[in-house]
């Protein structure tokens, strides 16, 4: 297991790459969801009906 985590001595580079992807894509997703929720609350607060 520890041998696997070491990624053949390149742990920093391999795990670093996956960490970069998780942080950026996760961050973008969380930010987009929060933005969406905020916009919807504002729409409701202003009484702008959502056309369905």
């Amino acid at each position: 297991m520890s041998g696997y985590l070491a990624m053949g001595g390149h742990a920093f580079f391999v795990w670093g790459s996956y960490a970069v992807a998780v942080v950026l894509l996760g961050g973008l997703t969380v930010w987009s969801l929060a933005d969406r929720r905020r916009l919807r609350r504002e729409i409701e607060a202003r009484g702008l009906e959502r056309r369905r």
Partner: protein
Amino acid sequence: MSRPAANLHFLANPARFRRFVARVLPALWLVTAASLAGGLWLALVTAPVDYQQGHTVRIMFVHVPSAWLSMAGYALLAGLGASLLVWRHPLAALMARAAAPVGACFAAICLLTGSLWGKPMWGAWWVWDARLTSMLLLFFLYLGHIALTRAYDNPDRGDRAAAILALVGVVNVPVIKFSVDWWHTLHQPASVVKIGGPTIHPTILWPLLAMAAALLLLFVALVLMRTDSEIDRRRLELAERPS
């Protein structure tokens, strides 16, 4: 009149687009999450090491799909730009606003993971060869697009300016793709999309394609959801403006 992508034409109507998104998005998120879990399992657990590069080949499973999606994302911006400038589709500008940060995010991941891969394998974090330089230019073109859409008080003017930038900048996409064939670069030539078929063994190719499919689903889910949000944002702006 001519109808580009006639089967998707119904989505040009914002109300119908919203109904479509509301119906599709929950299932899309579920499929995306499942594909990402499956893709990561293949990439990090079952994929074998490479005979030359050992475990660092696993960086490819993030790096290459990010490169593909950032290029496809810019092609999408150009298509939306044309659709805005020529056909004045009401949704094109909003979808471009939604898609640009997603594409920029993938471009950034491509550059950063490429750097983390280049240091142990090539011996350098960064080199100014044609492939790496044109990819960095793509990232800046995304930033320029995002900046232009927000640069004007009248959002329509920002949308037009960004659409023109997308159409001009899209010429960089084939340059990125073929840079490794046209010039001597440190970056190796294409492995998957090439004449004569992939030069990646199936045990490494399948995890790559699985990750590419999963990240494509994430890209689509993010763009659809963010476009829906952009419609809300535009409605709020219109409500604020005295008409």
